[in-house]
């Protein structure tokens, strides 16, 4: 009897618990999804698969890959900044050169130590930021030191000058991100003269904040966080001279910025009105909560760019209209997931992706799957202006992923321009692209009216006449002179 009761209780309780058990969603593993709308993320096919993970043992002639910070790809060479050296590798990871020591401008021997950002120009000139030594080193293509630039002339700083990231435009102007400089990116001329702050970020303070700051006492104010503009975390320059940059901040609305020559943010919103920002749907509590923390960016020749989110170790790829194309990566130990990713770069035309992980001291080479390859090809063709051929690839992508909003959008718009309004409507309706849908709808409505209006008018006229005639007949019968009765 006792046992029975016990059993019964157990059943009851487990039942209760099962009812109340929260749905557990596994967060581990590679994340493959697209963001389609405010309704959340949709599953997407795997965009990138691991080709090989390179540790120091896998690369001949390299002792270690300690403290990886940055990578750069130029002219089929990979430049990797490690703790004590800049490694130059070809695309098969054969070591081409190790730059660990150099002759300083005054003739003394010096060695590379903790380089942060590196940049290589078309001609092969190598720029290396060394924040600990407060200088930027410039090497020629044979790795001889050309210049050792300390703090730029005309820059007045109250903190130590620590350059961490550098890009160089076609006129050899240097754009430098330095830690603890909140005014923006430093624009420095080729002879190390400070020009101006570039891409200056303004802070916006709400009136309520301002009010509370006003009435706060001196002590309270010292306890509050400083209102500082945001600091850039990384940047990269496109072949057309636009600078893509990221901001690691949870407070700005546009953490990915596209800066023109003037330093203005010209990053477009996508047609859904979403700013590129990494994860759109995220939890606010629990592990890895909050918006993405973006720390690295790379762009390619046709306007695509990818950003690295170090909060959830994901990599987000966007096209030039800020549509999210695919997401990959994730936190974890298995291949294709990362512990502490520090740098992502595209490997030239092959669209492979290099991911440097400073904790696991490895460089992962990831290869686009058929799905990603189709999208790459489509975006490339679109950038070249060949929309008709691009649609073919969009259709391929759509065949692999019916949630692919970008593909539906592209196909729908192309069908509209081709004049297939019904087909365009079908695709555009699916993704709520109302502006183009409305245009297509106007056309189909016109066709409809053209087709049926004459017939409609005729039918209406016939009906009216018929009713009139019938009435006349009826009234004749009623008020008639007896013939009807007869």
């Amino acid at each position, binding site marked *: 009897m006792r046992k029975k009761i016990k059993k019964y209780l157990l059943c009851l309780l*487990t039942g*209760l*618990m099962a009812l*109340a058990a929260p749905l557990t969603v596994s967060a581990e593993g590679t994340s493959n999804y697209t963001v389609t709308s405010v309704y959340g993320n949709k599953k997407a096919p795997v965009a990138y698969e691991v080709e090989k993970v390179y540790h120091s043992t896998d690369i001949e002639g390299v002792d270690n890959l300690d403290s990886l910070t940055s990578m750069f790809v130029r002219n089929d060479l990979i430049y990797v900044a490690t703790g004590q050296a800049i490694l130059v590798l070809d695309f098969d990871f054969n070591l081409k050169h190790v730059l660990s020591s150099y002759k300083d401008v005054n003739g003394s021997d010096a060695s590379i130590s903790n380089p942060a950002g590196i940049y290589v120009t078309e001609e092969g000139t190598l720029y290396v930021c060394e924040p600990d030594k407060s200088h930027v080193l410039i090497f020629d293509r044979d790795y001889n030191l050309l210049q050792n630039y300390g703090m730029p002339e005309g820059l007045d700083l109250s903190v130590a000058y620590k350059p961490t990231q550098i890009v160089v435009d076609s006129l050899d102007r240097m754009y430098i991100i330095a830690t603890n400089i909140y005014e923006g990116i430093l624009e420095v001329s080729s002879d190390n003269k400070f020009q101006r702050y570039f891409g200056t970020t303004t802070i916006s303070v709400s009136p309520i904040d301002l009010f509370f700051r006003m009435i706060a006492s001196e002590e309270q104010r010292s306890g509050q966080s400083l209102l500082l503009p945001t600091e850039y975390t990384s940047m990269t320059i496109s072949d057309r001279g636009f600078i893509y940059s990221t901001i690691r901040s949870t407070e700005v609305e546009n953490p990915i910025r596209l800066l023109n020559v003037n330093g203005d943010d010209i990053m477009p919103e996508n047609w859904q009105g979403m700013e590129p920002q990494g994860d759109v749907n995220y939890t606010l509590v629990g592990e890895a909560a909050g918006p993405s923390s973006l720390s690295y960016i790379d762009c390619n020749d046709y306007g695509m760019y990818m950003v690295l989110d170090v909060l959830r170790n994901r990599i987000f790829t966007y096209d030039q209209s800020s549509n999210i194309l695919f997401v990959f990566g994730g936190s974890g130990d298995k291949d294709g997931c990362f512990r502490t990713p520090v740098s992502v770069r595209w490997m030239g035309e092959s669209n492979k992706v290099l991911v440097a992980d400073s904790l696991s001291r490895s460089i992962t080479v990831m290869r686009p799957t058929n799905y990603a390859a189709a999208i790459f090809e489509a975006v490339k063709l679109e950038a070249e202006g060949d929309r008709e051929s691009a649609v073919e690839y969009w259709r391929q992508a759509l065949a692999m992923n019916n949630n692919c909003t970008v593909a539906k959008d592209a196909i729908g718009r192309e069908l509209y321009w081709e004049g297939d309004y019904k087909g365009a409507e079908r695709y555009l309706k699916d993704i709520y692209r109302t502006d183009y849908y409305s*245009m297509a709808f106007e056309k189909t409505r016109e066709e409809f009216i053209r087709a049926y209006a004459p017939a409609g008018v005729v039918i209406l006229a016939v009906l009216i006449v018929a009713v009139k005639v019938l009435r006349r007949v009826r009234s004749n019968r009623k008020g008639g002179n007896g013939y009807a009765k007869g």
Partner: protein
Amino acid sequence: MQKASSFDLKKWWKSVLDEGIRFPLYMMGKPFKAFSDIKYENKGSLPACITFLFILMLLSVLCQSYTGAIFTKIDPRYMNIWMTMAGVLIQTVLLCVANWSVSVLTNGSGSFKEIFMVAMYAQYPYMWLRALYLVLSHVLSLEEAPLLNFCMSLAIIGIVFYGFIGLVSVHGYGFFQGIASVIFTVIALVIIIFVILMLVSMGSELVSFVQTVGREIVLHYF
């Protein structure tokens, strides 16, 4: 017994026309008179008002699922019919309860039934305009959207206008009393919602407490 069994279609249709069309139209033309008729002459009908409520609930569902693709961003796959309908119902009931409780405190002479009828008759033009919106959304394009916006603004203005007049009429208020009554109704609404939310959250805490205790018992003894 006999009366109930004999259903006169013609009579029924006439009453539908009378209560569903004629009286509301009369109300729209002469709102002061119509609302005092409701109060003193026993005009208007409760069944009609309840029907309006159902129509409004139905319309809210239809609007969510069948508005033309240009004018909606709601994905019908993510919509919950019952919640949508309950939303309308709860809105109406809450509003009436709030207003009724305020009117009781401020010597308003309207009964709950009258308040409900005012709420429904005030939404009569809204009902038709909403239906019109639903139809037009399939015919118009984005460029002609201002027409629809105008339609909806008109509907909202109608609700406010007739609702206020109805309120003033059935409670026997003056203009400023009416305004004050509206403000107090809003406050009452907020209080009611607050209390409900508090009860719900406390209830869920209680449930989770019982669950935790249950889990502990299971883990400890079994």
